[in-house]
């Protein structure tokens, strides 16, 4: 003890004086580093980190807008929405996603459901955006998640409205389908309308009217704590539902057309010639747009895209076919319009027609004998029209074809419409470098050779004939209405052109078309109704290039893909036409036997539906 005291007394504090001087500096400088770091984090990067902390705590529970409803011309709903339940996880709300997924799988236990476990790097960088684990779960499965929610932190259930196409495949090509917004759409989206994961119209009306149908998504801004538990609602924005669309389609007629095409490949289009309203448009085979609702599976997509019958294609506007004999009205119109023939001008059909060294056959090998225009249309005599074609010439034929709206897209409000092809001398020279051969005009005069048309174009041309010469832009949409019924946009009648042909000339052709269906020897006898009111034309379009090889071989014994396409176009009633129908059945042989019966069913259905509606209206009136 005394020893210690002695030592203390010798203590010389000066020994440490320098050390303390250094120490003060060391301490001050090292703490200044911490303060500098705080300055960096809190002042320089403060806003950025504040934003990150907001992202941490604020979760946007998006409520998707309900897409607008689509109705047919009678106001019957053909597309509506139904709720679907998705299970998602917010990875940022949990320490280990795998643990929660395991817990979820344990909840499902015997159901043997498996969920996604791996999180991609990009998903990690946005840990507070929910990840979809399962889409479209059932009510029972939903209930399981709800009851175990305490054990499932970060797991959220979203109610997503999905499209329900009541007609399924029946209306697939008109309505199109909806799918997740694509990367290109997102890049091109300057206005910021879309977010990844949003669903947009991908084809058909869904695509064309997407901006009307889409509505505006709303959402709840909720504050959550670290385990994803809701603390409070900060803000709530109600979604704005999309607007409703009323089409010109008659769902009943559409159904009849669809049923008539069952088992056949091709398309049917029905139109009101008075204003160009499309009443039915069927392309067969079709796809089920409901498959796309929750994202189509890879197998389903492969099946659809590799099908040789091209179910995704809308054959009514994208299928391009030789017009065949249905083109004869153009040839007749050109010959009459140019004054090269009178209705009484006759030509003799011996079964074939000679030009130079070429022989062009009539479908009737034994020949039709001497014919005037009327009989030539009724019996679809090829030789008669070969003669007309030779008189008119290819460029005049093209002029009339274009006047009827052929060779260019009709302008219908559907995406990806094709334009067909109406050849001229100039076109051939430009395209192939070869001069026009006179024999080619002969083929063109019966709708073969280079001529190609879409079923809709063909129908539109016949409608122009039926209504006395007005070429409309086909109408598919009547109007877009807000939820309260206020009309946002009216899609009225649109006239594209008037055919420069006298009424007399048209009446002559129309009378011929009436004969096709009602006179003996007519090729369209399938359309002979007791009312005797249908006028129409058959067509048998040869598949290009196979003519020589399969000469004289019966259609049904040829390989399917080389068989002729069967066409039929008609309108009724012949005096005041209010419905026109075009049918193309691919590789089905003769128009009269394969396509006309389909048209008959549609025509019959049209008048049946019309009668039913008139009765209903009368009933309603008498009740009042």
């Amino acid at each position, binding site marked *: 003890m005394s020893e210690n005291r002695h*030592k203390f007394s010798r203590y010389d504090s000066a020994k440490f004086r320098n*050390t303390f001087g250094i120490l003060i500096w060391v301490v001050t400088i090292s703490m200044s580093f*911490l303060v500098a770091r705080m300055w960096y984090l809190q002042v320089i990067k403060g806003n950025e980190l504040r934003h990150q902390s907001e992202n941490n705590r604020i979760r946007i529970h998006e409520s998707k807008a309900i897409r607008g409803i689509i109705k047919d011309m009678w106001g019957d709903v053909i597309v509506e929405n139904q709720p679907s339940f998705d299970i998602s996880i917010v990875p940022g709300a949990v320490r280990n996603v795998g643990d929660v997924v395991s817990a979820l799988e344990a909840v499902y236990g015997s159901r043997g459901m498996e969920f996604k476990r791996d999180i991609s790097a990009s998903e990690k960088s946005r840990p507070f955006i929910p990840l979809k684990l399962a889409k479209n779960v059932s009510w029972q499965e939903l209930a399981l998640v709800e009851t175990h929610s305490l054990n499932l932190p970060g797991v959220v259930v979203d109610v997503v409205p999905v499209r329900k196409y009541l007609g399924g495949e029946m209306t697939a090509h008109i309505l199109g389908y909806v799918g997740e917004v694509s990367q290109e759409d997102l890049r091109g989206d300057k206005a910021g309308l879309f977010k990844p994961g949003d669903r947009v119209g991908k084809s058909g009306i869904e695509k064309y009217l997407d901006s009307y149908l889409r509505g505006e998504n709303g959402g709840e801004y909720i504050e959550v704590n670290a385990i994803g538990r809701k603390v409070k609602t900060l803000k709530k924005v109600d979604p704005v539902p999309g607007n409703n669309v009323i089409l010109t389609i008659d769902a009943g007629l559409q159904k009849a057309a669809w049923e008539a095409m069952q088992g056949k490949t091709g398309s049917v289009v029905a139109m009101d010639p008075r204003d160009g309203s499309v009443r039915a448009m069927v392309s067969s085979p079709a796809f089920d747009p409901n498959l796309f609702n929750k994202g189509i599976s890879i197998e389903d997509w492969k099946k659809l895209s590799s099908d040789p019958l091209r179910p995704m294609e809308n054959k009514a506007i994208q299928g391009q076919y030789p017009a065949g004999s249905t083109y004869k009205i153009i040839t007749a119109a050109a010959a009459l319009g140019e004054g090269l023939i009178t209705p009484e001008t006759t030509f003799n059909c011996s079964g074939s027609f000679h030009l130079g060294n070429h022989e062009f056959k009539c479908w009737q090998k034994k020949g039709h004998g001497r014919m005037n225009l009327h009989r030539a249309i009724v019996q679809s005599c090829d030789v008669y029209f070969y003669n007309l074609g030779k008189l008119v010439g290819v460029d005049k034929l093209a002029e009339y074809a274009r006047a009827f709206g052929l060779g260019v897209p009709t302008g219908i409000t559907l995406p990806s419409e094709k334009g067909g092809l109406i050849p001229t001398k100039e076109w051939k020279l430009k395209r192939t470098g070869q001069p026009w051969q006179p024999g080619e005009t002969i083929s063109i005069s019966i709708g073969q050779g280079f001529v190609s048309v879409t079923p809709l174009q063909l129908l539109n041309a016949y409608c122009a004939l039926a209504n006395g010469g007005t070429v409309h832009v086909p109408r598919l949409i009547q109007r877009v209405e807000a939820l309260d019924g206020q009309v946002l946009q009216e899609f009225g009648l649109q006239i594209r052109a008037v055919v420069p042909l006298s009424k007399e000339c048209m009446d002559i052709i129309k009378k011929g078309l009436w004969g096709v269906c009602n006179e003996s020897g007519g090729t369209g006898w399938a359309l002979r109704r007791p009312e005797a009111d249908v006028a129409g034309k058959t067509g048998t379009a040869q598949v290009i290039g196979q003519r020589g090889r399969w000469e004289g071989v019966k259609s049904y014994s040829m390989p399917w893909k080389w068989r002729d396409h069967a066409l039929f176009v008609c309108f009724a009633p012949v005096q005041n036409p209010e419905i026109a129908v075009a049918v193309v059945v691919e590789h089905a042989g003769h128009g009269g036997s394969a396509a006309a019966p389909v048209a008959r069913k549609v025509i019959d259905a049209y008048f049946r539906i019309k009668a039913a509606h008139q009765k209903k209206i009368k009933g309603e009136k008498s009740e009042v």
Partner: protein
Amino acid sequence: MKFDRRLLFNFDWSFLLIVLVICAIGLLNMYSAGFNVLSAKAGSFYIRQSLWFLIGLVFMGLGFSLDYRDVIRYAYVVYGVSIVLLVAVFFAGEVTRGTQRWLALGGFTFQPSELMKLTIVLVMTRYFTVHEREGKYGFKDLAAPFLLVLVPFMLILKQPDLGTALILLILFVSIILFIGVQWKTIFITAAAGTLLMPFSWFFLKDYQKERLLTFIDPQGDPLGSGYHILQSIIAVGSGGFFGKGFLKGTQSQLRFLPEHQTDFIFSVFAEEWGFIGSLVLMILFLALVVWGLRIAKQSRDLVGTLLAYGITMLIFWEVLINIGMVVGFLPVVGIPLPFMSYGGSSMVVLMAGMGLLMSISMRRFILQP
């Protein structure tokens, strides 16, 4: 012991004020850290911490009432008791999250490793005053004190508690550098240390390796081990210049911050009080440390100088390492922030240490040779 009126006259009121202000900030912050947003009620943390603070005040009073020279005389006894407690942790310690650090003592828990931090300062003071020499210390002179540190170092490392173990080592190094070590010894130790560094990797636990890797690249696994440090940086930074306000720190209130009552308590404070608040707190800590060094410097004997220096360095290193970790400067190691982090052991031990500092300060004029 006869009471000397000069003791009261020389009482270090400024130092007491600094300590009390930091403690007050600590308790206020603990109220916020323990606040439950869902029930909108203050948790029990700040009540318990206040209790510990009061107990700490008693120990502080004990610290300045005693003559620090008498305390140092019993340094080896304190050391022996501390070692026994550390060993007891192995047999009777409570296991929490894979580590065994706490002893249950009649209703409350006690962390002997916290006590060991102060004990090391006491025992080093004792050793180097008894074995005081004129020149600098070499290997031979340092072997015995090193052994005194090595035993608790290994015991604490085994718990495992890397942070506290490292603090002991850092304190040891701070003290020997202060009293003077031969250059030769420093060089050889530094060279050997550098060579052995890579091998030490193999002695680290997996979670410790992970923390080191996370420190190097916190973005590497933002939801795994990087989660803590990232959330802490977000909390500190989101406070901005003026802070989000008391009880308004979303990172801590909504529990995005891990360990927000203990090791990451500073994030809670920085988020709610911003750069201004953080700066004030840092200035207070700096004042505490500088004042402590001044006490060490003004002491009339080596015991007082060494003891005051050692305790001050304990505060300094804990502040530097804890805040360095919270702001992403240093890897995550479990070291509490003095007077701010939740925990009774740390609070009581540090308050006792503050008492000793005050004891040295108030006796600087009345030292009797």
